């Protein structure tokens, strides 16, 4: 489309003695140009993101199984959700996921970034290896880790058995299901966090380290007094993105445990999916979606407000 537009405008230009234009027609022409550039993105965003967003709010006020007529119930779905112990459980499981995942990827990613920011041989090759899981799909990650952590003949338990440790039941055991998901997710995202922190590290001026050394600061002192404060914008970005993504965790849960065993690893989005397509409760599912959105939005806003206290933009 933009190609044909470009061609017509080329044709226009080949006739320099175009009709004289008034200010009004030039203005209209400019408005049309702006529209032509914006509509290709504005139409899909309006139809498939903003519109459905508002529609979800409308549906959340109804009882509806996607088939029969909708019945208006006001805030009934929200009241039902808040009274349902399952809602608290799925939010708790999601928080459990975040509490396990975020420290793992942040501390691991930071350690890797610090190591790769030194005079290391084969640095970009190593960085490439660590980043590889990032481009792999969540479903593949889940399947591969289901196999690695297979209780009966997976390699992890085989290695543990070889050193005399009886491995756990991993994703088949309610107590180990969420740790299994956390492990797989951290493996996938470690490289992502590493690359962001590495970019942040490389933006820090070497002069500051020299000055700190002259002042007699050791490695740890330099880490806490120079590196971490100056890395805070990257850290902030990692936290915001991780929390937004963490609350929306779904693919790996669906493929690794399906929320089981016995709902032990059921997260919020798994619940939204089940409510919609398993229990035919589209109204309640939409209400839970909005609840999730509000929670994510609130947490993001709190982080953005709180950043002034600890994020140092130099």
């Amino acid at each position, binding site marked *: *489309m*933009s190609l044909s537009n470009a061609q*017509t*405008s080329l044709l226009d*230009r080949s006739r320099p003695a175009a009709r004289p234009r008034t200010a009004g027609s030039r203005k209209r022409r400019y*408005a049309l140009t*702006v529209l032509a*550039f*914006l509509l290709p*993105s*504005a139409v*899909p*965003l309006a139809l*498939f*993101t*903003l519109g*459905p967003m508002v*529609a*979800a709010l409308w549906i959340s006020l109804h009882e509806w199984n996607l088939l029969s007529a909708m019945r208006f119930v006001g805030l009934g779905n929200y009241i039902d959700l808040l009274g349902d112990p399952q809602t608290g459980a799925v939010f708790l499981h999601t928080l459990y996921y975040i509490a396990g995942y975020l420290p793992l990827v942040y501390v691991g990613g930071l350690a890797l970034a610090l*190591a790769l920011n030194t005079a*290391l*041989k084969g640095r970009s090759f190593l960085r490439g*290896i*660590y*980043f*590889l*899981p990032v*481009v792999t*799909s*969540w*479903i*593949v990650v889940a*399947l*591969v*880790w289901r*196999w690695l952590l*297979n209780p009966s*003949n997976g*390699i992890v338990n085989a290695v543990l058995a070889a050193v005399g440790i009886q491995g756990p039941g991993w994703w088949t055991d309610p107590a180990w299901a969420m740790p299994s998901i956390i492990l797989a997710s951290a*493996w996938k995202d470690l490289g*992502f966090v590493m*690359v*962001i*922190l*590495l*970019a*942040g590290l490389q933006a820090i001026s*070497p002069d500051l*380290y020299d000055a700190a050394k002259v002042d007699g600061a050791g490695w740890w002192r330099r880490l806490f007094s120079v590196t971490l404060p100056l890395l805070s914008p990257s850290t902030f970005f990692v936290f915001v993105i991780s929390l937004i993504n963490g*609350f929306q965790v*779904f*693919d790996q849960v669906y*493929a690794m445990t399906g929320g089981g065993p016995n709902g032990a690893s059921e997260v919020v*989005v798994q619940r939204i999916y089940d409510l919609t397509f398993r229990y035919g409760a*589209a109204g309640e*599912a*939409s209400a839970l*979606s*909005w609840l999730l*959105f509000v929670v994510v939005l609130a947490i993001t806003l709190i982080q953005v407000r709180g950043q002034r206290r600890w994020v140092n933009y130099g």
Partner: protein
Amino acid sequence: MADTALSARRMPGPRLAGWIVLHVVIVLGAVVMFFPFLWTLITSISPGVGLTVTPALWPENPSLSAYETLFTELPFARVVGNSLLLAVITTVVQLVTSSTAAYAFSRLPFRGAGIVFSVYLATMMIPLQVLIVPLFVELKTFGLLNTYLGALLPTFASAFGIFLLRQAINQVPRELDEAATLDGAGHFRIFWTIILPNIRPALATLTVFAFMGSWNSFLWPLVVLRTPELQTLPIALASLQGQYTTEWDVIMAGSVVSILPMLALYIFAQKYVIQGVASSGIK
């Protein structure tokens, strides 16, 4: 941390020891990180890996029978084709919609541009899950469930892509536009002949991300594509797991098929992927 020029030979004893430890740890870490991929490949060529057998690190009778199962007993050729088709179309369309919008936000001032841009960015915050029910109903109304178009439409505009390309276009010197304007070029011509050639690296980054996003996407295709012939790789893999519960060689072969094209793209465009991620973290 910054004295990068020292070579190992000139280091004093304790520093050399530290240098060696660092290398050993980081290389061991890389081996552990890479091992799941290797194990996936090994399992996929170890036939008969089932309920009780852990495959050997070096398979005794390597065979491609698991791949044969995928492509003869299952419609995997079709599934790979579906994934490719959707990924290519999504990528091309996102390149068009993102670059045009980015040009408007960078070069075409209009009243309310700031507000419109904020609304665009806000859509990045809306999780797909919130949209699932209404999108499902919307596409059902249009009769687009179980169609490629239904799977594609919600992916056509990407706030991330628009943001990325707008940053890139802002870096293109405005003198270039002005010179072209003096030569009588209009906005479409400036966009096509000046802006696009100057933001090639950002376009490459977006190409990789759009392709990757589509290739790996799961929830929306799962909801909209219900018949087996239309399924994409992630969905086919997830259902493979239900069908071949204990035949891990088949499941891992499917995983290899899904990883390989992304791996190729990644090796080819590693620079742009890492640059794209890195630049997203810096304000």
